[in-house]
């Protein structure tokens, strides 16, 4: 196992150029905390961003931060917090769910388009990623986007690279738009609602003028023995009081919500963000993206085929985290059959290597899109050296 750890962009170019000559594929690694995502692949060499660290740009008044790809995410978040700012998309920490250790990097957040509960309102990592530097499969350092948040100059390769899981190239630097941290955060919790009623509540709240920044439902047995339906408000303190009252009134038929603040609220949402309720079990874990209203329909259909399934909802019902037995195909056929008539897609986030090798981890693509995907991969990485097969077999 060779590990290349370039400390400059030029060195990274040279590594890639030398690897292209040998044709030996490369695994791309940041902190290694998300290395279990995607299809398992056989590689003998690793290109690590560990030598590319440091914040390269931070202008609080312009709400922009840039960092080399291997910079620990925690350092970026601490730097922002010192000036009362944050990444807008609340990136998931995969360590609890995947049982990994190490330090997540900012580059991997971009490469994986890693987002969290705020995604429903503030967008995904891809919506805040405004610039990248990347080594493509020709060993060329290329850039896309920049440091300004409004930029439509040329094709948006930033979006393509966000969520490409290292298959298009090696990120050396990323630039994100940031936001002020809210003055106060309060979670409103209603107890005992069934899935359909809970998602209806979340939907009404998200369609209200009161701007919940996160909206989740935890059925009974997820975290506690009773179901909890959660809305998170983030705002100036006086607005929180006003909006919390308005929402309580809107849903008065469900009783007064419990107000959760501070550490309790933060812990609750990090468990939701990280699917922490499924940490440490032997189950396979899926992530389903659906129109929010279809969340309960999908889980009802899945429960018929897979009676042991457990789940909870984020994104107002549009994100279903699902834990099922890891035996056989880890429920792939039943899950995908259940969501096919509804639209949306399912990703197998955690399962033993053998299962992830046998089952399409990402939703299979229709033919024209598969052809486009293969073409884009080829356009960045003609020799197929970056994470070959990580997302789709043969690509």
């Amino acid at each position, binding site marked *: 196992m060779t590990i290349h750890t370039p400390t400059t962009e030029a060195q990274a170019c040279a590594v890639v150029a030398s690897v292209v000559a040998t044709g030996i594929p490369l695994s791309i690694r940041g902190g290694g905390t998300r290395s279990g995502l995607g299809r398992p692949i056989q590689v003998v060499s690793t290109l690590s961003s560990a030598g590319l660290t440091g914040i390269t740009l931070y202008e609080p*008044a*312009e709400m922009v931060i840039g960092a080399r790809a291997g910079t620990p995410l925690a350092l970026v978040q601490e730097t922002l917090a010192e000036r009362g700012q944050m990444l807008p998309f609340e990136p998931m920490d995969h360590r609890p769910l995947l049982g990994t250790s190490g330090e997540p990097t900012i580059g991997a957040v971009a490469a994986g388009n890693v987002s969290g509960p705020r995604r429903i309102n503030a967008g995904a990592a891809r919506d805040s990623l405004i610039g990248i530097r990347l080594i493509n499969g020709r060993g060329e350092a290329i850039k896309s986007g920049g*440091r*300004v948040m409004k930029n439509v100059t040329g094709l948006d390769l930033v979006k393509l690279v966000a969520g490409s899981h290292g298959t298009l190239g090696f990120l050396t630097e990323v630039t994100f738009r940031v936001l002020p941290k809210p003055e106060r955060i309060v979670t409103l919790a209603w107890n005992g609602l069934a899935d359909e009623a809970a998602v209806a509540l979340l939907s009404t709240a998200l369609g209200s*003028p009161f701007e919940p920044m996160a909206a989740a439902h935890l059925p009974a047995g997820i975290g506690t023995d009773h179901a909890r339906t959660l809305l998170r408000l983030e705002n100036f303190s006086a607005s929180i009081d006003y909006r919390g009252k308005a929402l309580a009134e809107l849903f008065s038929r469900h009783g007064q919500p419990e107000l959760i603040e501070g550490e309790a609220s933060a812990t609750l949402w990090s468990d939701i963000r990280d699917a922490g309720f499924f940490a440490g079990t032997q189950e396979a874990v899926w992530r389903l993206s659906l129109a929010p209203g279809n969340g309960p329909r999908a889980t009802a259909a899945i429960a018929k085929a897979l009676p042991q399934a457990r789940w909870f909802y984020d994104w107002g019902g*549009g994100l279903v985290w699902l834990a099922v037995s890891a035996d056989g195909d880890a429920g792939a056929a039943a899950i995908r059959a259940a969501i096919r008539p509804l*639209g949306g897609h399912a990703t197998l986030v955690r399962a033993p290597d053998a299962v992830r090798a046998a089952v399409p981890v*990402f939703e299979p693509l229709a033919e024209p899109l598969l052809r486009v995907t293969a073409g*884009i991969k080829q356009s960045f990485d003609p020799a197929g050296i970056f994470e070959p097969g990580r997302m789709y077999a043969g690509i």
Partner: protein
Amino acid sequence: MSAIAFPIPRADILARRDEIIAGLAPLVAADALITSDDERRPYETDALTAYRRMPLAVVLPSTTQEVAAVLSYCSAQGVPVVPRGAGTSLAGGAIPQEDAIVIGVSKMNRILEIDYANRVAKVQAGVTNLAVTGAVSAEGFFYAPDPSSQLACSIGGNIGMNSGGAHCLKYGVTTNNVLGVTLVMLDGSIVEIGGAHLDAPGLDVLGLIVGSEGQLGIVTEATVRILRSAEGARPVLFGFPTSEEAGAAVAAIIGAGIIPVAMEFMDKPAIEICEAFAHAGYPMDVEALLIIEVEGSDEEMDAQLARIVAIARQHGVKTVKESKSAMETAAIWKGRKSAFGATGRIADYICMDGTIPTGQLPFVLRRMDEIIKGYGLRVANVFHAGDGNLHPLILYNCNDPVEAQKAEDAGNDILKLCVEVGGCLTGEHGVGIEKRDLMNVQFNPEDLQQQMRVRAVFDGQWLMNPAKVFPLEGRVAA
């Protein structure tokens, strides 16, 4: 003006015009194929009216299948295609060429589905931007991107150019508000990307399509996010003695953790032009004007505006005018929203669209003034202050070829300046033909070649909107 080159029309295609028209005729309804000189003329340019080319023919399909049939025919015949929304591009994104077929989506103008529970609407590409908001406003919803041309411009065109607007500081631009598209590829295949759910699986092809300026295919339908309107919205108008102080106030507001829904800047020439047209009550004794809008309940807006006004006072604000009524709100916005039209009444103008890091604002305004004076021209500045997206309007007389050339040269100098200070050539209008030959200023050859190789995945023959975005020299076909 004739500075921007067009490819030489292919003689073999021009010679086959009758044959090509005969080939298109069975593919669409009779009234959807436009071939006469008079009827083709409205399609020879867009909002970059200094440039015009008569297309070979214009096709206005009514269905995705018709678009597929026409594209499939054109690709088989090797005929260039120029997609067109409403033709409001300021960058010349929809200007045709003599050997091209224009495919316009204006007949595909139906709103197909509104889903309030899931907060999405499915619309055809020819629906106007404002019509989406119009269709959902009775329920208290809106479609967020709001380009100044929103009354006329189409969702298809917005997707092509990744359009922005005055309110994207809070709500984002088109790419942040589109969840899915139906895309017809050059070979006629129809692809569904995304839908009512978030984050399409696989590579973010949707993110690539948005802003691709009609080079990768034609979008015929889109699923867009609709958002619930705030309880209320209210602007405040500030007049500052200098643009430096206005810029510092903007930075301080953001630094205080406040993200207003809009922050618009106008310089003195823009104030004068807009006031003369709109009678908005703008102060005439200041050098810079800011319109800052906040949203929420009355109490929330009072509280936020109080904080914003206090910050402005710390930065030397001279005039403070808070809107007290819907009429005053409309008047404040009328001046800003009519800036382009009002300018057009007093002179011809080129509207630039560079973005700069906002910290560079005072330097860029000073330098821009020098550039413009160097050419003996005048400029009026309106721009989105929160995000640094500048819209200098360079005034000139289009009947004077020398002055027209100077205006174009001055515009190019300004865009180069934007790139030099860390910004970009275009924040929301797109590259089109207008900024095509400046792409080498912002990107090095490897950057552009990578973009062109991605482009070639969709169009290896350079048939889709071929004169746009990438310099004519050094193109990569695969």
